Structure formats: C-alpha cells, structure tokens
C-alpha cells in the first residue's frame, strides 16, 4: 500500500509548493483559451503543458538520473534548432495574401515604423540590467509574431524563453485592448475622421509569383541571418500564389500550421517549469512586452502623422498602428475604430496592407537584431 503512495509521500512540499502556482497559471491559460478565445491554438497546449511539466517528478521532462523526458526530446528536436518556428512560417506564408500590399506599396512604410517598439524595448531592457542577448530576445516580443520571438530567443539561447513566448502570444491576443487605447492617446478626433478613398490597383500573377522569390534573395544578400525566417515565410507564399500547388497550400495553411502549433505549445512548456518561470524577471518581461506593443503602435501612428505634414492627400494615422505584425487582428481593430468615428470610413484595405507589411517588417527586424547583436 505504501508503495502506491510512495511518490506522493516523497514530495517535499516545503520546497515544491511553487509548482501549485504553475498549476494555477496553467489553469488560467486554459481558461483564457477556452472561455475568452485568446490564441487558443497556442495558449491551451501551453496551459496544459505548464501543468504537465510541473507535476512532482514529472516523467514528461527529464529528471535527474532518469531517461530524457518526451517534452525535452521534442524541444531539442524542434525548438532548440529553431525548426518548429520555421515550419510554422511556411503555413503563415501560405495564409497571407500580399495583394493589398502589392497594390498599395507605400503602406509598407508603416510596417517599418511600427517596429520601433522592438528597438525601444531593447534599450529599456538593457537599461534595466538584462544581458544584451536577453534584452534582444525580450525586445522581439514587439515583433508581435510568435515564431519570430521563438526563433530569436532560441538563437540567442536566452534564459527567458518561456516567459518571452507567453508574453508574445498573450499580447497578440490583447491587441484589441492595447491598440485602441494607444491610438486614442496619440491621435485627435479630427485625425481619426480622415477618410481614405480606396483605389485598388490590380496586380499581375507574375508579380505575385516573383515577389516572394525576389524578397528572399534580397533578404539573403543584405541580411543573411534573416534568410531562414524570410525564406520559409516566402516559400509558403510562393506555394499559395503559384497556382499549381493548391493542395500543398491548403495543407500548409491547415494541417502543417495546426500540427506545428500544437507541438510548439506543448513543447515550449518545458521552459515553464517553476524553477525557470517563477522569477521576478518574468514579471519584468511581461511589462517590457507591453511596452514593446505600446511603442510599436505609437511608432506607426506618429510616423503617419509626420507623413501627413508633407502629404496633400492625408493618411488616417490610425492606419499606422496596423503596421504591427499581429495579422489580421490589428487591421480589424483599426477598421472598427474608423467605423466608430465615421460609419462611412472604410479603412480595412489600407490597414490590411500595412498589417501584411508588418509581417514582413517584423521578420526583417528579427533578422536585423540577429545581425546587429553579436554573441
């Protein structure tokens, strides 16, 4: 009988009690995924994983003197070598229609401006005492792009991979709450009322096919370290646009993306063992992630306001906020805010173009961080 309960009786609760906090955190993540529909494909596996790896003597992760746990095996096979985020990028690339961007390329400028939060947070995190590799990994939360966050933090072998990924995905889900507040602070009602007539230009199929190939080549020539990120994203898009691989495109958008997301969420939980997760730094990272999102949004909006000084045909500065990579939430937020101010102001296509460019710009930002910071 005693053997049946030996594991339970061997638990030293005086030192192991923090795992209960992780069970609660896991429960909260599952609650947010199920009840609030916040990034459920990722938060639910992460929440469950947080409980799984924080059970006493959990066989899911490697224990001292025992064989390697399956979650650690998955981590080494898919995240430590940055494979899972790259595979996910194929799916994301297959999901993105660059059409609005190709027909209105000046919107790309907002994608660039809205990466300001990344670099601002890099400086702030350095100022707060984080090592440069950790500061860079934290800053990339501002890319509003989960796979890029995982890729960069793993590249730098950051000590805070778990909190960074939680922050990245949580704030992406909170875009509809964070962005409207920042946009309202940075704009006047008159600016939010600016109408932008949509004059779509048609784009040839040849252009759509050549675009991902040429962008990959440009990334490879100018920022070689970003070429894996950009290349996998653009490969996914090429599958979508070529017109002869529709079934592969469908598979990449659905089966591949779903399967990798599932494994990614569960695997990342190995970094949510309480020994690594319950630290003051985790709270600081959550705070810095929020700062990154706020300054990304403000960067895009303020850049649009600056452009308006020189433009005859004014841009609604809210569109600048859609330059972050959180696609398509951010463009929907901007469109909804435009309609709230003026029911006849349709900003969706402009915001979608800025939003898609944010996807490219965030990957470029990730590549630049890898290039600029030598470890």
């Amino acid at each position, binding site marked *: 009988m005693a053997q049946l309960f030996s594991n339970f009786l061997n638990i030293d609760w005086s030192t192991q009690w923090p795992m209960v906090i992780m069970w609660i955190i896991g429960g909260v993540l599952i609650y947010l995924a199920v009840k609030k529909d916040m990034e459920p494909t990722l938060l639910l596996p992460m929440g469950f994983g947080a409980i799984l790896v924080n059970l006493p003597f959990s066989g899911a992760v490697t224990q001292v003197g025992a064989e390697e746990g399956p979650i650690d095996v998955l981590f080494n096979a898919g995240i430590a070598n940055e494979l899972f985020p790259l595979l996910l990028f194929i799916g994301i690339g297959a999901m993105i229609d660059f*059409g609005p*961007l*190709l*027909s209105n*390329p*000046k919107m*790309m*400028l907002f*994608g*660039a401006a809205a*990466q*300001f939060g*990344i*670099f*601002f947070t*890099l*400086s702030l995190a*350095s*100022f*707060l*005492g984080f090592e*440069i590799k950790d*500061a860079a990994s934290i800053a990339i939360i501002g890319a509003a792009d989960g796979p890029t966050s995982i890729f960069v933090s793993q590249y730098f072998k950051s000590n805070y991979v778990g909190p960074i990924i939680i922050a990245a995905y949580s704030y992406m889900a909170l875009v509809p709450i964070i962005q409207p507040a920042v946009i309202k602070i940075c704009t006047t009602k008159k600016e939010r009322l600016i109408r932008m007539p949509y004059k*779509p*230009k*048609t*784009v*040839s*199929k*040849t*252009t*759509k096919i*050549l*675009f991902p190939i*040429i*962008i990959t080549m*440009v*990334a490879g020539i*100018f*920022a070689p370290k970003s070429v894996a990120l950009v290349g996998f994203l653009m490969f996914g898009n090429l599958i979508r646009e070529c017109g002869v691989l529709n079934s592969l495109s469908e598979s990449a958008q659905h089966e591949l993306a779903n399967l990798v997301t599932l494994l990614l969420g569960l695997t990342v939980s190995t970094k949510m063992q309480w020994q690594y997760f319950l630290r003051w730094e985790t709270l600081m990272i959550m705070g810095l992630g929020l700062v990154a999102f706020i300054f990304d949004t403000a960067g895009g909006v303020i850049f649009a306001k600056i452009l308006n000084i020189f433009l005859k045909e004014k841009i609604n500065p809210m569109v600048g906020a859609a330059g972050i990579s959180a696609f398509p939430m951010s463009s929907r937020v901007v469109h909804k805010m435009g309609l709230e101010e003026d029911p006849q102001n349709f900003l969706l296509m402009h915001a979608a173009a800025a939003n898609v*460019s944010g996807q*490219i*710009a965030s990957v*470029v*930002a990730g590549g*630049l*961080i890898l*290039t*600029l*910071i030598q470890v």
Partner: protein
Amino acid sequence: MFNVDALLKSLPIMGLGMLGIFIVIGLIMFIIWILGKAFPVKKDKQDN
C-alpha cells in the same frame, strides 16, 4: 540595478536597426514598383 552603460551601448543598435528596416522596406517598395512596371496586368491578363 539600472545599467546606463548598457543603455548607451544599445542606442546605436536602436538607430541602426530602425535605419536598416527603412532601407530594406524601401528596397522592397522599389522592387514592387519595378515588378509592377515590368509585369503589368494587361500583359498576362490576370488580376488580383
């Protein structure tokens, strides 16, 4: 706790990073413009 030296070292990275993004994005805009000129819709009679 506050590391002013690290902050000062990170400022050039911030500047170069933002400059780099605008250069790359500017280049991509230029490529899109070239593609639009080289392969107009009328040529292959397909649109978006």
